[in-house]
């Protein structure tokens, strides 16, 4: 009885095209957002903010960006870390080189840098497809790793190649305390998620999906592959770039290229596959799974009071993590978002089995 849409008739197409056509969903989501903005800052501990919520939000956002490229447009990319790095270093350079550059502007400009490079690296996608493209995007990854390590200019001539920022504020409001940082990220994420959702349910989103599902047919109905793919690369790298900026500025504060290594790229790809390709909510589910699960598993032995060797614990974590990934894929190859949708469908029918 939880999920009854009986009696909820759509009288206009506008109503039918809402993000959450079912009232229950809408209420729940709005409630969640409200709670995230109001209740969480009051309740969460510093550890929760800094080690869980902030990384979760930022990585969700990066996953969201990646999902546009991989999940919606079907171009598998393993170079996400690179675009995060470009966003972060781009923002950093604007921030320290331009006197009085506001934080938000710096982050957005960093995202723009990522967009430019993203489009550049997107060009091969017009010819190279699938896994070949995926591996080829690693070129972007390793190239940027190298460039930020080697080219002194990017790091403002820091001798060790690690950079850091300080004195973050938004119109004079300092973004220093964990709660502020959290709210700052949350605002970004909410906004970007909304815009991403708008894009993917608009015609540009359909162009992406059409490219993904069958590019020849898409071309025949008049979709230009160049435009569709490159916009996907652009939008995706922009979001990823801004997320990279947040990761550097807000989460780490000080970073080196290793913060955006190929492991990060893989991690983000895991998130969207586990969460659900081609689903905005999936990006969040995936980020939650990949960020929270290891933390949870790590903390489990000591929380249960089982004294267990650190190395063994972390090997076990890795095993359980791996096994859970496989398990989830077996239960639902299309990710947690789909699993959720199926569950909802069941709830809708409940208590009748079908």
């Amino acid at each position, binding site marked *: 009885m939880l999920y009854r849409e009986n009696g909820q008739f759509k009288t206009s197409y506008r109503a039918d095209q809402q993000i959450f056509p079912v009232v229950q969903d809408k209420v729940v989501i709005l409630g969640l957002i409200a709670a995230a903005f109001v209740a969480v800052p009051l309740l969460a*501990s*510093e*550890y929760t903010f*800094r*080690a869980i919520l902030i*990384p979760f939000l930022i990585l969700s956002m990066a996953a969201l960006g990646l999902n546009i490229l991989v999940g919606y447009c079907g171009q598998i990319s393993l170079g996400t870390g690179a675009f995060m790095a470009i966003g972060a270093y781009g923002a950093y350079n604007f921030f*320290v080189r331009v006197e009085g550059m506001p934080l938000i502007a710096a982050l957005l400009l960093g995202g723009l840098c990522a967009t430019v490079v993203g489009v550049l690296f997107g060009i091969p996608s017009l010819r190279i497809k699938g896994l070949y493209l995926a591996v080829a995007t690693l070129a972007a990854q390793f190239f940027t790793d190298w460039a930020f*390590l*080697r080219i002194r200019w990017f790091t*403002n001539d820091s*001798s*060790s*190649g*690690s950079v*850091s920022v*300080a*004195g973050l504020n938004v119109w004079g409001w300092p973004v*220093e305390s964990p709660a502020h940082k959290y709210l700052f990220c949350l605002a970004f994420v909410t906004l970007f998620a909304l815009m991403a959702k708008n894009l993917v349910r608009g015609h540009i989103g359909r162009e992406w999906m059409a490219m993904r599902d069958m590019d020849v047919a898409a071309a025949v109905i008049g979709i230009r592959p160049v435009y569709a793919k490159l916009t996907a690369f652009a939008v995706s790298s922009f979001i990823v770039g801004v997320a990279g900026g947040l990761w550097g500025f807000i*989460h*780490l*504060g*000080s*970073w*080196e*290229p*290793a*913060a955006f290594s190929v*492991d990060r790229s893989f991690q983000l790809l895991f998130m969207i596959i586990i969460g659900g390709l081609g689903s905005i909510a999936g990006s969040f589910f995936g980020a939650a799974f990949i960020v929270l699960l290891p*933390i949870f598993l*790590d*903390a489990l032995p*000591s929380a249960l009071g089982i004294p267990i060797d*650190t*190395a063994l*614990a*972390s*090997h076990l974590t*890795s095993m359980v993590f791996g096994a859970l990934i496989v398990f989830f894929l077996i239960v639902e190859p299309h990710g947690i978002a789909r699993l959720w949708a199926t569950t909802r469908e069941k709830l809708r029918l409940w208590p009748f089995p079908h």
Partner: protein
Amino acid sequence: KEQFFPLLVYRTGPYAPNGTPWANGKQDYIKMINARDGGINGVKLTFEECETGYATDKGVECYERLKGKGASVIDPQATGITFALTDKVPNDKIPLITLGYGLSASQDGGVFKWNFPLMGSYWTAADILIQHIGKKEGGLDKLKGKKIALVYHDSPFGKEPMPLLEERSRTHGFELLKIPVTAPGVEQKSAWLQVRQQRPDYVLLWGWGVMNSTALKEAQATGYPRDKMYGVWWAGAEPDVKDVGEGAKGYNALNLNTSGQQPKVIQDILKFVHDKGQGTGPKDEVGSVLYTRGVIIQAMAIEAVRRAQERFGKGKVMTGEQVRWGLENLALDDKKLATLGLTGVIRPLSTSCQDHMGSTWARIHTWDGSKWNFSSDWYQADEQIIKPMVKAAADKYAGDKKLTRRAPEDCQS
């Protein structure tokens, strides 16, 4: 009453073979102090390990987690994590011990109030190596026209010594070749082809983890003489040479601390911990180079607490701020070292508000195919060169971060 020590370690991942003995040393020392002395003036010591896998983000997560449990001093055990935490610790008021690594500029306590690169930084390390090579050649002036190659881990860790080496190369007129090795360093063929092409007179090895042993194997395979190779102190432990064996014979590396099971502190650990079956790692690894380094790091942390207790109240649990004071006022003279059982293991050390390093001594040891032997006297890094560099770098950092130098009265507290 319990003093809590968070232990950031990596027992898994590419650097596990090096991270594990290090972590074992830290843990065993705590256990030993509890078992032998019942803690510090009656304050029991507790600890919790957190696995970072040498990854910065996991390190930050560990830090945040353990911080909440009452951490008052932390050894991040990785350069990357140190960088990330350097910005966070002033807010949280937790001092960082980065013994022998971290930011070289953080020696300057005037700017880096919370960082303690005790006993040496990469600048002092590089400086000592050049001094040693100069001595071998019969004087630093003989370095003119020589070629010295720096084969380095391509990361901030590997790049940190460069400013100093460049400075020295300018002064003495030797040519400095920089040859990067991409982390983690499993494929170094082209680096060593370059070494073979350039035929440098000496190779400085700035590696960590698998990079070291691979470098030695490649050196062997390209016929580069191992006795012309000098490693930093992170490239001079057993895991680096063990499976190269004979092939690494003649290889030299810096050494911050002695190894072996003779020192009293190690004996105590064996007696109070391992013999009771509470040891952390295998018994025969107790006293290895990195194990002993772990012991020293933990000893420093505990001595800082002890020192702080002397001032803020014996038998009390110290806060981060208080431990920071302790670290800033360490005075480990020969007598003190003797009571700690560290005689001969390290040089005496004393820190101050301005100087967060306390000692810049190190010496060289050489692998004979089955064990490390000392092959030089102690060297001290040249203050004349290092001091101005540290100051300049610290000032730049302060400028970037819009910090002001600590006022003299800040040093009193």
